């Protein structure tokens, strides 16, 4: 996931380094640092905006580590779902418990089914569905689709996924 964080640094040397250390310590990937020297706060601190990628599990550790170093966090904005994907399912979708299929994706914590369109032509004939999946990153989208394919295999459903270059995995 990608996190945008506004922090406040005391105007003494070494503060920025102190603030960025937890990000790398917990294997986060720093994307940008914007120093607002000109916008000193009434408290005399300097506002800095930091954007980084991290595993969702590590965000809390990063936050507490910052708090331990006495760095003020003014705002955290986590944009969780960055990637959007679509898949089509064909087969006995409802009979094989569509809710369970969706729950399995939603329970991953990194992807979510955000839209479902179902088309059932005739009783006993296979139906078709389009699923929209949002995920934290391209890799997570790809694993959500892999997971969906595993479930579909057990339920004898056909999964039609986007071409590889569309999934950006090339």
């Amino acid at each position, binding site marked *: 996931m990608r996190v945008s964080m506004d922090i406040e640094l005391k105007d003494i040397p070494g503060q920025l380094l102190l603030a960025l250390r937890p990000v790398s310590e917990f294997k986060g990937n720093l994307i940008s640092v914007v120093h607002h020297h000109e916008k000193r706060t009434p408290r005399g601190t300097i506002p800095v905006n930091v954007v980084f990628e991290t595993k969702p599990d590590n965000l809390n550790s990063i936050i507490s580590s910052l708090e331990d170093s006495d760095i003020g966090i003014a705002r955290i904005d986590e944009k969780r779902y960055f990637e959007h994907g*679509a*898949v*089509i399912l*064909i*087969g006995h979708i409802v009979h094989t418990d569509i809710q369970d299929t969706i729950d399995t994706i939603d329970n991953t914590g990194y992807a979510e089914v955000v839209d479902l*369109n179902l*088309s059932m*032509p005739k009783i006993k004939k*296979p*139906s*078709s*569905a*389009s699923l*929209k999946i949002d995920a934290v990153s391209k890799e997570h989208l790809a694993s959500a689709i892999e997971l969906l394919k595993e479930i579909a295999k057990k339920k004898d459903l*056909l999964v*039609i*996924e*986007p*071409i*590889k*270059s*569309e999934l950006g995995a*090339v």
Partner: protein
Amino acid sequence: MKTIRLSIIGFGAVGQGVAKVILDKQVYLEKIGIDFKVVAIADSRTAVIDEDGVDLAAVISRKKTEGTVGSEKLTGLEIIETIDHELVVETTPTNIVTGGAGLGNMFMAFKHGRDLVTSNKGPLAMKYGELIAAAEASGSKFLFEATVGGAMPVLNLARDVLAGNKITNVEGIFNGTCNYILTRMMEEHAPYEQMLAEAQELGYAETDPTYDVEGIDTACKLVILANCVFGMNATHEDVTVTGITKITPEALMLAQNDGYVIKLIGEVNDSRINVAPKLVPIDHPLAVGGSLNVASMQTDLSGPITVTGRGAGSIETASAILSDMISIYRD
């Protein structure tokens, strides 16, 4: 002028196409200094042999009216073994279970040091490594552009034109029959069975369509690609395959509403060889309609390169064979 004596083994749609393009391109071939002299032709039952060059127009017309190429009883294999010539054009039917007549023909050609150009996928999808080794051992030239995309250049593009690039992924549509059926299902909102029947009526699909619609034909082409371009030693058993028979018109509609078309996509990279129906964005270069084929290669230096063209047809496939023939003998 360099004279190349050749045999055409298999005289159906493609074999006859080869005879026609050799006739049609006489002037051009003369200009580049190559005289392709056909000294023998075989179909499944008969043969015609003439050291001074077979009269191609006469054989084409005889095949049409009498169903045979000649009155000699020599088999294709015997021609390759006993008649003196430089090049075998192998266009017998594809068989991926036994390799068909083609497999023996190819080994025989290499045993006698003859060069070989073919459109026959079966032997290559079964025994690629052994065939290449046999050709190398005897110093025979061995080209098979027509096996992968008909007129659409894929193998030669990867090997010659894109030389120096590392190709990391190939994705594409390699079966015109499937593309035709899926395109028509979407246009007419019609079920698979109905559009298969239409394709059969128009001659786009065989009476037994299994080989095409179950993705086996695409799988064989991918195996050849994987071996030739990615240096693998795969057979068609290494390919995971899903065909198009379960696709519904509703699925095509839902996909369309989301901005996609559904195509039978073949994919090769270092980690897998896969055939499956996939979602292709409507504005993507792979979203070609009708019975067209298309291939997109990811390269390290040039980025994506996409080619599209006719994947089958008598003259189209013969054009790929002619191009291989010329590239062997042009200085």
